[in-house]
C-alpha cells in the first residue's frame, strides 16, 4: 500500500486548492453551473487524478488505464479542472470555455467532444450501471485478475434513483472487486437536505446489505481518501463503496453547507453574506490566500 508522506499530503492539498480556484474562475466566466458539489469534491478529485488513478493525460485512449465514470455529471467543473491541471488540456481552456457555444467543456460531460471522458452523463443514476458493465466486459476479457479499476463517482441525492440500486444488486451479485463507487455524501440536493427530501440513512447498512464492502471517510482528509481507495483495491470478494462525507461548497466560507449553492455560480448565489458582484472575487481571494493564512504582500 502506498502511504502518503507529509510532503505528499501538502502537495495534494495545494493541488486541490488549485482545482478549487479553477472551478470558481470557470463558473464565474460561464455565468451558470454548480458550485457546491464541485468545491466539495476537489480533494477527492485531486487524490484521484494526481495519485490513485492509473492514467496518461497525453494518451487518453490507453487501454490499460483505470476508468473514472462521473455519474452526477453536473459536478463536471471539478472533473474538468482536475483534468486540466493534470494535463489533458490547458487550464486556460477550462477557464474560458465552460458551457460556451462550441466548447469541448459541455455543461454536462459529453464523451464524444472531450478526449479523456469515459462517458457522457447528466441525467442521474446511470453511471454505476455503466461502471458495472465495463467491469463485466473487463472480466470477460482479462479474468478476475484484471488490475484495471472502475471508479464511479455519485452524488448522494442521486441515490434516490432506482437505477442506482439496480446496479448495486448486479454489482453485488457479480462480486466485481474492481468497481469502486464513491458517494459524495454532502447531505444536500436541489430542494434541500437529503434527509428531508428522501432519507438515505442508514446508508452504509443499505449498501452492505447489497453485498458491497463499505467504508465511511472524511472526504477532505487526503490520508483517509488514500487509505480507503487502497483498502477497496485490496478487497477481492466484493465491489467497494466509499461514502465520502464532504462539506458542500468546501474551501470558501460563504458557500459551505448551503444547499442554495447547489446550482448557482459565484455571482448568482445567495446574497445574505456576500453581495452578488463580489462573490467571485471574494471566493478566489479566500482560496488564493488560504483563508487569510497567506497574507498579501501588499498589506
Amino acid at each position, binding site marked *: 500500500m502506498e502511504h502518503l508522506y507529509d510532503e505528499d499530503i501538502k502537495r495534494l492539498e495545494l493541488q486541490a486548492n488549485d482545482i478549487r480556484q479553477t472551478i470558481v474562475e470557470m463558473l464565474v466566466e460561464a455565468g451558470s453551473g454548480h458550485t457546491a458539489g464541485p468545491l466539495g469534491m476537489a480533494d477527492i478529485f485531486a487524490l484521484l487524478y494526481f495519485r490513485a488513478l492509473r492514467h496518461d493525460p497525453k494518451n487518453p485512449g490507453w487501454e490499460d488505464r483505470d476508468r473514472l465514470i462521473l455519474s452526477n455529471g453536473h459536478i463536471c467543473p471539478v472533473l474538468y479542472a482536475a483534468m486540466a491541471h493534470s494535463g489533458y488540456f490547458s487550464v486556460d481552456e477550462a477557464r474560458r470555455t465552460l458551457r460556451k457555444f462550441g466548447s469541448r467543456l459541455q455543461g454536462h460531460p*459529453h464523451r464524444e467532444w472531450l478526449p479523456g471522458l*469515459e*462517458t457522457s452523463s*447528466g441525467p442521474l443514476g446511470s453511471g454505476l*450501471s455503466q461502471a458495472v458493465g*465495463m467491469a463485466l466486459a473487463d472480466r470477460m476479457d482479462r479474468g478476475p485478475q484484471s488490475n484495471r479499476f472502475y471508479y464511479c463517482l455519485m452524488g448522494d441525492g442521486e441515490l434516490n434513483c432506482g*437505477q442506482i440500486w439496480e446496479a448495486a444488486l*448486479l454489482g453485488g451479485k457479480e462480486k466485481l472487486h474492481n468497481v469502486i463507487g464513491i458517494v459524495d455524501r454532502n447531505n444536500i440536493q436541489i430542494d434541500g437536505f437529503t434527509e428531508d427530501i428522501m432519507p438515505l440513512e442508514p446508508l452504509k447498512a443499505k449498501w452492505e446489505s447489497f453485498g458491497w464492502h463499505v467504508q465511511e471517510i472524511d472526504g477532505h482528509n487526503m490520508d483517509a481518501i488514500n487509505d480507503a481507495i487502497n483498502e477497496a483495491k485490496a478487497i477481492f470478494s466484493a465491489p467497494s463503496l466509499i461514502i465520502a462525507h464532504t462539506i458542500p461548497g468546501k474551501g470558501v466560507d460563504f458557500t459551505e453547507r448551503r444547499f442554495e449553492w447547489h446550482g448557482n455560480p459565484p455571482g448568482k448565489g445567495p446574497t445574505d453574506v456576500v453581495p452578488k458582484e463580489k462573490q467571485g472575487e471574494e471566493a478566489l481571494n479566500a482560496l488564493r490566500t488560504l483563508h487569510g493564512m497567506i497574507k498579501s504582500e501588499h498589506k
Partner: protein
Amino acid sequence: MTPTPLNPKIFDKDVEQAPIRKGYGEGLLQAGEEDHNVVALCADLTESTQMHLFKNKFPERFVEMGISEQSMASVASGMAAMGKVPFFSSYAMFSPGRNWEQIRTTICYNDVNAKVVGSHAGISVGPDGGTHQAIEDIGLMRMIPRMTVIAPCDSVEAKKATLAAAKYVGPVYIRLAREATPIITTEETPFAIGKAQLFLAPQDGVQAKVGIIATGSLAYNALMAAKQLESEGVPVKMLNLTTVKPLDEDAVLALAAETGAIVTVEEHQRKGGMGSEIAEYLARTRPTKQEFIGVDDQFGQSGTTDELLNHYGMSVADIVAAAKRVMTQ
C-alpha cells in the same frame, strides 16, 4: 427496382409460420459464433426473447440482469465502451419502453455500439392486454439521433437483421413480434440495413396506381391486401420497409412518383411511427396522398391477434379499403 424472390408458398393457405423473434435467437447465436465480442443481456425473459440459444452456448458472455431494464441499457453501454457488442432484450414495452432515457443518453448520445431488441411488440401479443402491447416503440426509437430502427417481417429476415446489426457499428433497435407469422422471405432474399424490398409489382410496363408500404409483422397482411387488389385489376406495388430509419428515400420517392397514392401499414400508433417517417419525408420532397394503417391514438386490450387487428383496423380488408380510398381521393 425488381421484385424480391419470396417464399413460393407465400400465397398458399398452408404457408409455413414461425415467430419473428425465433429468427433473432438464431441470428444472435450465429453472431456470437462469428464474433467473440458479441455479448447478450436479458431482463428475466431469456426464453421468450429467444436468447436461451446464445446463453446455452456462451454462458460466460451472457448477463442475467433480473427485471432491471434501465440498468440493462446502461450496463450494455459500459460493455460497449470496452469493445463488446451487446444485444439486450426484453419485451418492447419495457425495453425500449421503460428505459428510453438510458438508451438516449448512455447509448445514443454517448455513441456506443449497443443493440436494443424489443420482443412482443405490437398489439398481436394479444391476451396479455394493453399494458404489454408496445405500439409506441418505433416512434420512441426513431426520434433519437443515431438510432437505426429495424422491424423484420418474418423470422428469416429477423435472423439476417440480427447478423447485420452485429456487424453494423452503432446503436440499433430491432423490433420483434411474439406470434407465429407466415414466412414471406427465403434464405436467398437479399437483406441490407436501409434498403426496402419490392414484394409485389404489376407486370412490366404497367404503372402502379397505389403503393403499399409495410413494416414488421403486418407485411404479410399488406402483401395479402396487395394480392387481392391485383386480383381485382388494380395495379399495385408493395414495399417491405424493414428499416424504418434510415429511410430508403429513393424507394419511397420512386413509389410516390409512380402511384401518387400511398398506404402505410404498421402495428403501431399512427402517430409517430413508420407512416409518419414516410409522410415527413414526402411532405418536403413530393407531397403525396397517404392513408395510415395503424392504431388510432388508443391503447390496446386483451383478445386474439385477429380480433385485435380487426378491431383496430389493421386487417387485410382494412388495407384494401384504405388503398381504394387513397386512390380515389
